């Protein structure tokens, strides 16, 4: 059973003598959603281009859907959908005409697929309006529909939430999750907007200055980087000292205390102890967000 849908080994990309990617190696599981994270200019877009064979790597091996993008790019492009950074639609055409055009390009003859996708993305009512008159969020949704026209096995998304308001981000995330589950599409998302992403990604690749500095599932990364756990507890507990059960504490306002623990194993005994004395309404680990992990990882790789 082949479960790796994308594999790269020591991929290097130079443009005009400038090294843009160096020794990039990673693999992506079939059916997963992977977040490719990194600051501006890290090389995220370049990786997507290499994987689609629209530019060639200087060194290294790449395999996408079992094909080499350099020689069999056509096959890869037939089976993958992409939403590029700029929405890349024809503004002087209607949503319907845009999708109709791209379905011809992708060899899809079934108009029901267009109607289905327009419906899925809540665009059916505006299908005969010019795309130029659409909001950023609507354009993104048309692009997503465009990328899914041909039932791709793989979906590449370059900053899919850029320029969207929180509602727009949520709806894109929601659609992606559905596409992944219902159509079994493997998704690679590039982004530098981190919150929201953590709810749908199975694993992450952290890219910085053209190098993969870390990769893994959120669980793996937490194991590795979450040396201190900050647990915020909503409780009736009153502590006069600067610590409780030997754990340093910090008061975070009325009835909220943050404990510093050194591992998750210490959470249960702590809560049990508090419950003996008083009530607890909630407890949450505050430093496990993707964003805090990101800064931690980026920080450790700052040389």
């Amino acid at each position, binding site marked *: 059973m082949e479960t790796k849908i994308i594999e790269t080994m020591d991929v290097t990309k130079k*443009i005009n003598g400038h090294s843009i990617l160096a020794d990039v190696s990673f693999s992506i599981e079939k059916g997963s959603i992977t977040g490719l994270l990194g600051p501006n200019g890290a090389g995220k877009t370049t990786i997507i*281009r290499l994987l*689609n*064979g*629209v*530019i*060639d790597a200087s060194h290294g091996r790449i395999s996408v859907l079992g094909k080499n993008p350099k020689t069999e*790019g*056509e096959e890869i*492009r*037939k089976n993958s959908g*992409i939403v*590029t950074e*700029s929405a*890349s*639609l*024809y*503004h*002087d*055409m209607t949503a319907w005409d845009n999708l109709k*055009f*791209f379905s*011809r*390009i*992708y*060899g899809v003859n079934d108009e029901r697929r267009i109607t289905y996708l327009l419906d899925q993305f809540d665009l059916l009512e505006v299908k005969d309006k010019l795309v130029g008159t659409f909001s950023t969020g609507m354009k993104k949704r048309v692009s997503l529909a*465009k990328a899914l026209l041909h039932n791709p096995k793989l979906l590449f998304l370059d900053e899919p939430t850029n320029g969207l308001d929180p509602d727009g981000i949520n709806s894109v995330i929601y659609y992606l999750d559905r596409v992944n589950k219902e159509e079994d599409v493997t998704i690679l998302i590039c982004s530098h907007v981190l919150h929201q992403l953590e709810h749908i990604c199975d694993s992450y690749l952290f890219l910085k200055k053209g190098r993969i500095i870390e990769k893994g599932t959120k669980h793996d990364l937490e194991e590795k980087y979450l040396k201190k756990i900050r647990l915020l507890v909503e409780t009736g507990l009153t502590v006069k000292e600067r610590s409780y059960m030997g754990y340093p504490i910090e008061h975070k306002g009325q009835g909220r205390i943050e404990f510093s623990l050194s591992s998750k194993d210490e959470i249960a005994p702590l809560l049990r102890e508090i419950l003996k004395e008083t009530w607890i309404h909630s407890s949450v680990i505050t430093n496990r967000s993707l964003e805090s992990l990101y800064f931690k990882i980026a920080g450790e790789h700052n040389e």
Partner: protein
Amino acid sequence: MNKHIIKAIAVKDIKSIFSSKKVWIPMVILSFILCIACPGVITYVGIHTDLLNQPSEDIEKPIQAVIEQFPAEEMRNTLSELPTLGSKFVYYFMHFMLIPLFLMTATIHSMVTASNSFAGEKERKTLETLLFSPISVYDLFLGKVLASLIPTLFMTYCSFIINMAVVNLMANKAFDSLLFLDAGWMVFMFWVIPAVVLFNILLNILVSARVKSFQEAQQFGGIMILPVVGIIISQASGLFFLSPFILFLIGTGLFIGNALLLRFITRFNQRNALFESQIH
């Protein structure tokens, strides 16, 4: 080669040309002025007024000079047999001086449509999406060529037919035979014009695929008018005479050039090269 994809691209671009008033209205106006109004007015003035028949040295002398020196005997005889100076001038104009006007119109149309199609794709950032799709670069270029060739030829032939009707209706009593239905015009219209238009389009696409911006492509396009201007001057001054045979040779030469150009374009514009030079 995938016919469906080529057709999809061509149809989309042609629709975009005819749905954008900014593109097609100037084209129609230019065709109307140069290829219909201009010959129409000249025919009317030459045949239905006496304006050109005044015994005036200024007009008569150069026309007579051209007629006397004319290299083709048949044409010289026809011209000298025509009764009035006005009809001589109309006959001469319709046979020679109108050709460069049509050539110029077709050249401009092909430049406008070609830059709308290829450079326009780049300008709208949709080229990137197209390169990410399973289209071969060859099909993309071919679709773009058709997208510009078809509207240009359509406009040119429409104005030719209207011009033929207008001029012949006004001039039918003055000449023995219908104007424009001779070998020269036929070879010109159906052999030279397609060759020239195709040449312009290919050159335009080649340049668009090399330069970064729309403006640069437009500036380069301007240079393509120069040969046309050269032909206008030489035709008007009777410097050389484009016989049907010479026209045929010119067309053939251009078609050979086109085949070479197309090969050159596809060979030097592989997807990755195109992508790296065009997408930022």
